[in-house]
């Protein structure tokens, strides 16, 4: 196994291309290192011929705002995302989701890029990014840089030669809420989560973005609930009806060892309703 510490994105791309498909990006280390070490048999990782540690690439941790778009480097950690003034100001939903991720030790090292690449259906930051209409910036040595909606990024197989470099979040004045339901009260992947951003036009909903975690194979947008909410006035009844739509039509949950599909639908209904209440400014709606 070979190990590299490139200092530039292009360097990293060359390496990923050269060793594809057996090159792995090392970011926070909470996922890759784990996968390498917790194999229950002891076969050498024949298939990991190159580890590319991208943490020496300063460009990947930059955070900037140009008035319309917030750009967050893929290596920005959950801790940084929860505290950085630009992210708190222009992507508060991301800051909230980041502060609920795992525990302090994980937040110190877990990166936004790692969260998006994890493929977990309830990844906190990913779910929040979907509700921000975020775009993933991807560098690829063959095809040049591309930009993909986060909602599409999380459900597609990514090309092992490409590198997620940054996430773009359009600025908005939306009112936001992030709720997650766990078995215990902390330090756990969500069973189901709801990230909500609502833009109000006077007393009607101009746009609503509702992202669901744990309700499908990847985080998804509740498109039916969103389009129903457009033009409605922000009320308890609207929240109730929209959340019913989200549960019945937008969620596609599976039953697994953690929870049944029926219960996940119930959680979608409850969490979306409460998150909408919060975004509408109706009252503080904690899950517990």
């Amino acid at each position, binding site marked *: *196994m070979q*190990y590299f*510490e490139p200092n530039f994105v292009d360097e990293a791309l060359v390496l990923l291309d050269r060793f594809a498909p057996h090159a792995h990006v*090392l970011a926070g*280390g*909470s996922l*890759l*290192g*784990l996968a*390498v*070490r*917790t194999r229950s048999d002891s076969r050498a990782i024949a298939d990991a011929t190159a*580890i590319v*540690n991208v*943490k020496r690439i*300063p460009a990947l941790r930059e955070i900037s705002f140009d008035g319309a778009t917030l750009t967050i480097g893929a290596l920005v950690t959950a*801790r940084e995302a929860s505290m950085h003034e630009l992210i708190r100001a222009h992507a508060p939903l991301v800051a909230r989701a980041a502060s609920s991720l*795992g*525990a*302090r*030790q*994980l937040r*110190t*090292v877990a990166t936004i890029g790692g969260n998006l690449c994890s493929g977990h259906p309830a990844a906190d930051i990913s779910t929040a990014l979907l509700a921000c209409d975020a775009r993933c910036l991807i560098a690829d040595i063959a095809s040049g840089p591309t930009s993909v909606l986060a909602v599409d990024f999380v459900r597609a197989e990514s090309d092992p030669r490409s590198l997620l470099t940054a996430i773009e979040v359009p600025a908005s004045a939306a009112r936001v809420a992030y709720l997650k339901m766990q078995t215990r009260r*902390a*330090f756990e992947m969500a069973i189901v989560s709801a990230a909500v951003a609502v833009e109000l036009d006077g007393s009607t909903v101009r746009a609503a973005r509702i992202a669901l975690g744990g309700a499908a194979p990847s985080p998804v947008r509740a498109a039916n609930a969103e389009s129903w909410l457009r033009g409605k006035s922000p009320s308890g009844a609207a929240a109730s009806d929209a959340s019913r739509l989200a549960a019945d039509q937008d969620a596609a949950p599976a039953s697994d060892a953690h929870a049944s599909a029926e219960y996940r639908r119930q959680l979608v209904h409850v969490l979306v309703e409460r998150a909408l209440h919060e975004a509408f400014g109706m009252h503080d709606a904690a899950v517990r």
Partner: protein
Amino acid sequence: MQPVTLLVNGSAREVVVEPLQTLLAVLRDHLGLTGTKEGCGTGYCGACTVLIDGQPVNACLFPAVDADRRDVTTIEGLADDAGMLHPVQSAFIERFGLQCGYCTPGMILSAASLLAENPQPSDEQARSALAGNICRCTGYQTIIAAVHEAARLLREQGRAGEAPGKRAPIRGRA
């Protein structure tokens, strides 16, 4: 094999590590600092918590290469050079914040780093900050009492908000 300079408890230690070798393995096996414990190896118990530039991380997941020229604080680095316990350590003794002691090094470092950022945490803030450190023995109530006592001691000694551990004179990279 990668050469790495670890600034452990204020001293520079040169080691040669494998790329995915964890900081936990390097601390315990190369440097003989066995105060940091392995409880699960997967980042789910916090027994291996150490501080990197004052921030808590699970050493079992942290690649040692990423600690190059950064301040690493382990439990061995909290007491001062004369052997005086850090107020968090004293508080854990006086307020009965431990039983078997296996989670204790990680718990103490987590608490110390919390108090550096938040010198007077509420119960809720303290519990939330320690959520990543699992204790099976105490039920946590005496641990939270120890955190509050440590906060009081630090204030009393004029050390509220002080970063725990020793800093190396030469550190950091861009």
